[in-house]
């Protein structure tokens, strides 16, 4: 858990001070930093590492802010360790937004995160996961062992980013950590299930660039504009467990998903 930040200050030759931000007003562990991203951007930063507790705080604040919907907030972007709030400063003054955020933090810290657990089918290897054999060889494992490890873990959705519908997952077993490929691919197969460094990923149902290792494909459409208000199926804070399916089942499930059915099962349904 991140603690008190030292206010970073950069002093120019002529004495001009580039100050990152004022010192936190409240002492104590876990006080977030408030950074400026232009006059219409507020970054609430809870830490500087990939950490489930830090991410939980980002998700909790995002949820609270989305429910409060202060006038002048354009949108929010939750990431691993910070929440970006895009706002119109001609409608909502920064100091009022910051006060609203501090109030939400004071009243919502510690609230348990409503948790959704998904079971996501994956067809591993072969033409569905062209890097599975290579990843196994790198770690001195058989492809079956890689599948067993990957599908045996429970993952946390940290954020959606980089591309529409690309899901960043934490919780990859240490034995499967694999450095990114030195030569990223310009286009990878849609719906790929991938490993990049210490992270795991789920790709949307269209091509995108990637430097990660492709070990399988999922019939689940992570992102679908046809789903209207909620094009994104998974959201930060969700938990995911994978289970292997055979190629024939993959084809059936993919067809069903393309017809609009959600082919991932939700085990904890809190809405």
């Amino acid at each position, binding site marked *: 858990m991140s603690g008190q930040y030292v206010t970073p200050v950069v002093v120019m030759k002529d004495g001009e001070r580039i100050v990152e931000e004022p010192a936190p007003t409240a002492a104590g562990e876990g006080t977030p930093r408030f950074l400026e991203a*232009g006059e219409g*951007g507020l970054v609430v930063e809870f830490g500087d590492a990939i950490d489930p507790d830090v991410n939980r705080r980002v998700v909790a604040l995002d949820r609270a802010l989305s429910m409060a919907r202060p006038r002048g907030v354009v949108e929010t972007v939750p990431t691993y360790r910070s929440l970006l709030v895009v706002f119109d400063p001609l409608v909502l003054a*920064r100091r009022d937004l910051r006060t609203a955020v501090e109030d939400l933090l004071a009243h919502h810290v510690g609230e348990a995160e409503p948790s959704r657990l998904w079971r996501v089918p994956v067809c591993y290897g072969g033409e569905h996961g062209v890097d599975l054999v290579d990843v196994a060889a790198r770690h001195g494992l058989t492809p079956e062992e890689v599948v067993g490890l990957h599908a045996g873990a429970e993952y946390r959705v940290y954020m959606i980013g980089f591309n529409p519908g690309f899901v960043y997952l934490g919780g990859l077993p240490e034995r499967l950590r694999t450095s990114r490929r030195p030569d990223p691919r310009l286009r990878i197969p849609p719906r790929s299930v991938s490993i990049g460094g210490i992270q795991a990923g789920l790709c949307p149902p269209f091509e995108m660039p990637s430097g990660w290792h492709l070990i399988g494909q999922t019939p689940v459409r992570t992102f679908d504009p046809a789903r209207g208000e909620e094009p*994104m199926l998974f959201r930060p804070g969700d938990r995911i467990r994978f289970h292997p399916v055979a190629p024939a089942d993959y084809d059936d499930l993919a067809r069903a998903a393309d017809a609009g059915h959600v082919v991932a099962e939700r085990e904890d349904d809190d809405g």
Partner: protein
Amino acid sequence: MADTLAVVDGGLLTTVQDLGRWGYQNAGVSPAGAMDRDRLGIANALVGNDPAEAALEITLSGPALDVAADACRLALAGDFAVTVNDRPVPAWTAIDLCRGDRVRVLAARTGLRGYLAVAGGFALPPTLGSLSTHVRTATGGADGRALAAGDVLPLRAARPAGPRLALDPPPPAPERKRTVRVMAGPQGAFFPAAGWETFLGTDWVVSPRSDRMGCRLDGPAIEHADGFNIVSDGIVEGSIQVPGSGLPIVLLVDRQSTGGYAKIATVIGADLGAFAQARPGDIVRFERVDDETAVQARREARDAFERTLRRIAPLRDTGPPDVDALFAANLAGGAVSATADPFD
């Protein structure tokens, strides 16, 4: 038969853009939208559209379009030569076309981008509430890509048109050398004093490798203090990313929603339009301002834009005089005696 515009030549890079696709950056969706929002607003106002209506964003060299409608009013906001059936017509002015007319937008004389608005807009299906095109992910617009010969753009039926409107004089040409105001951060402290001196003290040159995703600037490498990687976080328009090369990139409308390079500073909203019109070889210098200054600048920019819209007025009829009509008009009527008292 629906009204359409047939694309004879797509131009260098012509895409359908409105004010952007907002609310989905948390799903990794880039906002896209018009690079020069003021010019989009002017184009729409000239044809009586809602200010947020989608138009064609034209880059450097424009398209050729055939009108397949009984009547079609359009206007170009931009410093481009425009012809209808090979005869020159003015930009910044509503033009009324009819079936079979061919409108061609030629080369930009100054700046880089212009907007061709059609009265009533396009009858295209929105994606997540917007018609904006994001080419990299093939999202939105007309098939998620730039216009090409053979494309057909369906038009919405327009209300009957009033007098033709014009913006006269048009806005001044963009400068080739500009000072752009920025606010420090969000990772301003990743850069030591030497890095800031370089960033603020250099005449940066706009690179030809710039596009709607980002304006790349050539110059000396900016010194980092803490390395150039951060844990990925959110990116607002105007963020200035400094990757390992040390050369800054100003991230623009087609940017990714998140990224892992340190951002030294953020261009203020009032000065973002400069990048919509910057040509390779143009010079950019950065000046640091604080939040209060940036907010005030945004307010002033909005007011200036509204003043520009208020200057849009019906075109004065400057056609040649109708001599027969002049003779028929009894302009000398009401004559009185040369000797009579005019006040009787």
